[in-house]
C-alpha cells in the first residue's frame, strides 16, 4: 500500500507537470489577443505592450520564461486584464473565503438532509413518502439552478422581503449568514437531491442483501436492522460522491454568484477565458486540477481502506 501510495503521488506530480505544459499551450491557443479589445492604441503601442509581456516571442520561449519564473521565484505571473498587475494568487486568495463560506454551509445543510431523506425514502420504499421525496429529487436535479436562484430571489427576497436581494459584502456575523441564506439554499438543492438519490439506491440494495435477512431472522425489526446494519454499509459507497462534492466547494457557482452578486470564485474561469487573461486562466486551471487530483487520489486510496477486498493497483 505504501509503495502504491508513493507511486501515485509521484505520478500525480508528473500529471501536474503535463497539465501545466498542455494547459499553457492550449490556453495560448485560445482566441483573442490580450490587447485586442482593450483600448484604442496605436500599432506601435500594442507592439510595445506585447513585447513587455513577452507575447511576441515564440510560444516555447514564453513557456521557458514562465517555467523559469515559476521554479526560481514561485512566480505565477500577474493578471493582465481582470485585475491588472495584481499577482494571480492574490486574486484567487481574495475570492476563496466567501465561496468556501457558502459552499461549506450548503454542504452542512445538504449532507444531513440528503442522508435523512435517502434513508426515509429507502425504508418507506414505494410509499407515498418515497414518491414525494423522489419527485422533489427529480425536480431539484432536472431544473437548472439558475431557474431556482431566480425564483428564490424574486419570490422570497423581492416579493417576500424575507432576505436581502443581493449579498452585502460589508455585513458580518448573523447578517452575513442571513444575506447568504438564499444562495446557500439555491446551492444546496442539487447536492441534497444527489445524496438522497444515491443513498436511496444504495440502501435499497443493502436491504435486500443476505446479512439483512439474517438480521431480521434473528429478531430485529425492519427499522432496527436498517439503522444498525444497513446504513453503515451504504454510507461507505456514499464517499464516492461526497468527496467530489468537497472539490466543488472551491469551484463556486457562476450562475448563483452572478445572480446574488457574490464576489466569489464562481465564474473566475469563465471570466478569465472571456477577458482573455492567460495568467489567471492558467493559475485557476492548476488550482482546480490540484484539488481534483488530490480528491481522486484520496478516493482511490480509500477504496482499499474502506473495503479491504479491493486491492487498488493490483494486477490482473
Amino acid at each position, binding site marked *: 500500500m505504501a509503495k502504491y501510495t508513493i507511486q501515485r503521488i509521484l505520478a500525480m506530480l508528473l500529471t501536474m507537470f503535463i497539465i501545466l505544459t498542455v494547459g499553457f499551450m492550449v490556453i495560448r491557443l*485560445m482566441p483573442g489577443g490580450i490587447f485586442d479589445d482593450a483600448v484604442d492604441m496605436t500599432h506601435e503601442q500594442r507592439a510595445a505592450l506585447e513585447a513587455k509581456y513577452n507575447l511576441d516571442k515564440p510560444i516555447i520561449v514564453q513557456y521557458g520564461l514562465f517555467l523559469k519564473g515559476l521554479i526560481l521565484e514561485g512566480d505565477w505571473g500577474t493578471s493582465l486584464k481582470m485585475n491588472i498587475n495584481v499577482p494571480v494568487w492574490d486574486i484567487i486568495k481574495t475570492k476563496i473565503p466567501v465561496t468556501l463560506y457558502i459552499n461549506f454551509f450548503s454542504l452542512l445543510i445538504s449532507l444531513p438532509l440528503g442522508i435523512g431523506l435517502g434513508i426515509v425514502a429507502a425504508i418507506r420504499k414505494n410509499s407515498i413518502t418515497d414518491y414525494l421525496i423522489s419527485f422533489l429529487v427529480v425536480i431539484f436535479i432536472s*431544473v437548472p439552478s*439558475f431557474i431556482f436562484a*431566480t425564483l428564490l430571489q424574486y419570490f422570497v427576497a423581492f416579493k417576500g422581503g424575507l432576505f436581502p436581494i443581493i449579498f452585502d459584502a460589508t455585513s458580518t456575523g448573523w447578517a452575513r449568514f442571513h444575506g447568504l441564506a438564499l444562495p446557500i439554499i439555491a446551492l444546496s438543492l442539487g447536492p441534497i437531491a444527489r445524496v438522497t438519490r444515491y443513498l436511496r439506491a444504495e440502501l435499497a440494495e443493502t436491504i435486500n442483501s443476505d446479512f439483512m435477512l439474517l438480521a431480521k431472522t434473528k429478531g430485529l425489526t425492519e427499522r432496527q436492522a436498517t439503522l444498525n446494519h444497513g446504513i453503515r454499509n451504504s454510507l461507505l459507497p456514499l464517499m464516492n460522491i461526497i468527496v467530489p462534492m468537497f472539490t466543488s466547494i472551491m469551484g463556486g457557482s457562476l450562475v448563483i454568484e452572478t445572480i446574488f452578486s457574490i464576489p466569489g470564485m464562481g465564474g473566475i*474561469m469563465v471570466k478569465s*477565458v472571456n477577458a482573455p487573461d492567460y495568467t489567471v486562466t492558467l493559475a485557476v*486551471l492548476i488550482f482546480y*486540477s490540484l484539488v*481534483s487530483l488530490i480528491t481522486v487520489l484520496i478516493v482511490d486510496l480509500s*477504496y482499499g481502506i474502506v473495503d479491504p477486498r479491493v486491492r487498488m493497483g493490483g494486477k490482473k
Partner: protein
Amino acid sequence: MAKFYSSDLPEYQVEPESFEFVQMEGEIADEKFQDKPIGFFKDAMLRFCRSKVSIIAFIGIVIVLLFAVFAPALSRWDYNDQDLNRINLPPKVPVLENYGILDGTRWLTNRRVDSLEDTSRYPEGSILKVINHRTVQGVEMCDIKVDYYKYSGVEDGTYFWMGTDYLGRDLWVRMWRGARVSLLIAFISVICNVCIGIVYGSIAGYYGGKVDMIMMRITEIIGAFPEIVVVTLFILFFGTGILSIILCLVVQNWIGTARMIRSQFYRYKGSEYVLAARTLGVRDMALIFRHILPNSIGPIITRAMIAIPGAIFTESFLAYIGLGIRAPESSIGVLLSQGQKVMQQYPNQVFFPAVVISLLMIAFNMLSNGLRDAFDPTQRGA
C-alpha cells in the same frame, strides 16, 4: 528438495486414454427442463414488463418522443415563422381559456390613465380590468389587465398553446422541435460516452498495474481542463452547432463511466468465479466482456439513462453562458436560458420547458430504475 510441477516430468504425464466417462450412457436422475431456456435479455424483458412504473415511464418517454417527432410537422406554424406583430404572446388554449387560465391575458403595470382611451395603443375591447389608480409624480397611473391577443392585434381564433417568443415564433412548435434536438444530442453523446467509457475502463481495470496507472493519469489530464476552455476551443475549431456540443459532452464525460467501470473491475476481478474461469483458460477478452462486464450492466444502464437528461442539462448550461446551439434552431437548453432572462415578464417562457425537462428526467429516472432491476436479478423487488 521440493519438487516442482512440470508437465515434462514423466510422473505427471497423463494420457487422455486414462480418463473415462462416468455417465455417458447412464440415466440422469434429475428432472429434465420442461421450459425452453430463457436468454438473458428475454429474462430482463419479462421482469421489466412486470413493473408498472417502468412501463408508465417508458410510455411517457415514447409520448415525448412522438411529440418531438410529429408535433412540429402537424402545427400551423413552422419553428422559425416570425411575425413581429405577435411577439411575446401569453399562452392561450381553447376550452381552458373559459376557465380563466391560459386565456391569453396579461397584466400591464404602470400605465398612464389618459392613454387608455388611445385605441391605436389599446384596441377596442382589449382592456379587461383596471385597478390600482394612483398618482405618481403628478401623473395618474394604473395597472390594467389586457387581452394580449387583441392588444397585439392578433386575429380572433388564433391560439398559441405555449405563447410566442421575442420574434413571434410559436413556442409549442419550438418546444417540441427543441425536445427533438436536445434528445438527439443527448442520445448520441451518451452512446459515445458509454462505449468509450466501457472499453477504456475495462482495460484499465482488468489489466491494472502500469496500464491502469498510465491510463488513469491520461484521464486526469483530460479531465483537468475546464469545460469552458474545452468548449471555447471546440467552437473556435468547429464553430457553434450540434457537432461542437456533442463533442463537448463526450470529450470529458466518458471519464466518469470509465472510472465507474474500472472500480467494478477491481471489485470483481479478484472473485472466485473469475479465478475459476481464468484457470479454465478463458481468454482475457472473454473474461472482460463475458464474465466481468455484465456485472456492471445495471450501473451502466442507470448511468446512461440519467446521463440523458444530464446531457440536456449541460446543454442548457452551455446555452446559458452563450455557447448553445446555432440559432435559430431550438433546444430545451436554449428555451430555458432564454426563458430565464424574461422569467419575471413572461413566466410561461420558462415554465413549459422546465416542465418538459422535469418530466423527461422523471421518466428516464423511473425507466432506469426499472431497467436496473430487470437486468440485475439480485435487486428484484427492491
